[in-house]
Every structure is written in structure tokens, then in C-alpha cells.
């Protein structure tokens, strides 16, 4: 699923069938190129849900076992959130120092939270396993062996 499509998903508590929030963003760990937590809004209990606390990421809604898994950020997530908040629209640099374009959207696996593909503006897609780092200035991806 694309970040653009996943954003705005309802978060539904399966024990009460209540909507407990709305997905507003993603916290990504560059080293594992996967989503570690969802940023949520319109909640009463906090602002993030860790990926491991999700029951399922469905086509219509994210389900969670109880409203309590929506928590405040801790220091670890805060660090990721600060750096990774604006993945989309960020410039993409290769480890060789060449700019490929800007991130238009990101495709991810709803089963595992693993990022699969970066879609770029005006440039070919980049496989997410090339991800090295996400900083305030750029998303850094491994350079292709013979590319530039």
C-alpha cells in the first residue's frame, strides 16, 4: 500500500469496534527500512502506535486489540519521528552524492511494515532495500554499482 493511500486510515479498536484515531504519518527505521510506528491523530490516549501492536493493516482500517496501544512517543520514537517525519517530498541522494529526485510516495508491505519501493518525481523507482539514512536534508540510498 502507498503512504498516500494509508494516510487517513481509521484506527479501529477490535474489542469495542470504536474508531480510536486516524493514521497521520509513519515513523521509519532506515537500517531495517521498515515502519516501526504509525503516527495517529484524533486520539484520546496518545499519538503513536508501534507496528508490533497492530492487529492488521487492512484496506479500510488499521485494527488494534485495544485503545491502550495508542501511546505517547518515547525518546526512541521521537528521534525517528523528528528525522523521518517528512520522508515524502524530501530529496533523494545516492551514497555517491548524486541527486535522483524527490520522494513522491512510498509503497510498503501491509503484512510486515517493510518499505518496498520509493516512487520519485521524474526519476525511476528506487527499491527500499537501498535505503541508508533519512535525515533533515535528504534520504540517502545506496548508489547502483554501475550507475550515475
Amino acid at each position: 500500500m502507498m503512504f498516500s493511500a494509508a494516510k487517513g486510515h481509521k484506527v479501529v479498536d477490535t474489542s469495542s469496534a470504536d474508531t480510536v484515531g486516524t493514521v497521520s504519518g509513519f515513523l521509519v527505521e532506515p537500517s531495517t527500512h521498515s515502519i516501526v510506528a504509525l503516527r495517529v491523530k484524533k486520539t484520546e490516549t496518545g499519538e503513536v502506535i508501534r507496528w508490533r501492536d497492530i492487529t492488521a493493516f487492512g484496506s479500510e482500517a488499521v485494527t488494534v486489540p485495544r485503545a491502550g496501544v495508542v501511546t505517547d512517543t518515547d525518546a526512541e520514537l521521537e528521534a525517528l519521528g523528528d528525522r523521518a517525519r517528512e520522508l515524502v517530498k524530501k530529496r533523494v541522494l545516492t551514497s555517491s552524492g548524486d541527486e535522483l529526485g524527490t520522494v513522491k510516495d512510498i509503497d510498503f508491505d501491509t503484512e510486515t511494515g517493510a518499505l518496498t519501493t520509493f516512487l520519485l518525481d521524474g526519476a525511476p523507482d528506487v527499491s527500499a532495500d537501498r535505503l541508508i539514512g533519512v535525515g533533515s536534508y535528504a534520504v540517502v540510498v545506496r548508489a547502483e554499482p554501475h550507475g550515475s
Partner: protein
Amino acid sequence: MRLMRTSEITQRAVVTMAGEDIAQIKDVVYAADGGSVSGFTLAGRGLFAGPLKEFLPWAGVSALGADAVMVRDESVLASAPSILEGSGGSAGSAGDVLGSQVLTEEGIGLGTVHDVVVSVDVTGGEYCDVVGYEVEASEGLGTQGQMVLIPLPDTMAASGEHLMVPSSVKDFVGHDLAGFGAAVDRFRAHLEDSRP
């Protein structure tokens, strides 16, 4: 290998593999013999940022690309004074090389240096070779007033005022970067062949 004018490198962002821009290139510092780049002086990022006291040695550069200078992390930066003193008195920043007169061994002036052309390995590489100068040609080249590229030998004498080159360099002058790499190779092969 990729050829680059050093004027294009200045102001380029220095970016860590974690995606943070930690500085930008202020000036290029050459090794004592002028044949390679020993590192870069740095300025802070942003419109009003001044020079930084840190220095980026070439060994700390992971890659010099078209859009950014990539480094592993902040730890590759060194303090400037020790490095600049360590490379000897004739080490020059770009400011010293630019404007120097290029002289052949016969004492013919070929022109004044406007830019420095370096060759870098896409993957960083052991060193950053200075392969040529962009020169505003004087009479000695027969194309007075034009900007031309002249290839350089591996090593040469540089005083800050003059740069000495073999006179055969005139046969290997280039006009754009695209074909210049080959001209440098031919020139250096020629020097190798004519060595006694």
C-alpha cells in the same frame, strides 16, 4: 572516473549517510605538490552562516558527487589548523592557484588559471587527482582569450605565482570536459613514453 571543475564543488552541501547536511564546501585545499586535493575548508549551511573551524580531509570523503559531498558522519571532520600546517608551506587553497600563470619549461606563458579540473572515482577513491586547469589562453596557445583545458602531469612545480608544465602540453589542449579525460590519459602516456 568523473571529471569536475572545482568551482562547481564549492558551496556544495556536505551530507552524512544519515541524510544530515552538516556543512558546505568553502574552499578546496591542494596537497603541497598541487597534484591532488588534500581536503576542503568548510562553511556553515544557510545564507548567513560563516566559515567553520573544522576541515574535511579527502580521506574523510566517501563520495564526491554531482550534487553533494558524502561523508560517513561528523566524526570525519578534523580541526583545520593541524591539517593546514601539516601539508607544508606551499600547500595552497584554490585562491592561490587561481590566477597563477601557467608557464612551459621554455618560459612560454600559456595563460592564467581560471579553474581546476579534478578526477574523482565514483566510489570516493584513494585520492582526488588534479588532472588539468581551465586557462584563459594567452598568445602562447594561439587561441588568445579563449577558455581552454590543459592537462597536467602527475606532478609539477607550483609556486603560487607560476605553474610549470611541459611544452608538449600544447598538443593536448581540450575544449570541454567530455573528451578531456582521454586527452589527460594521452598526455600522461606521452610523458611516460618520452621519459629517458
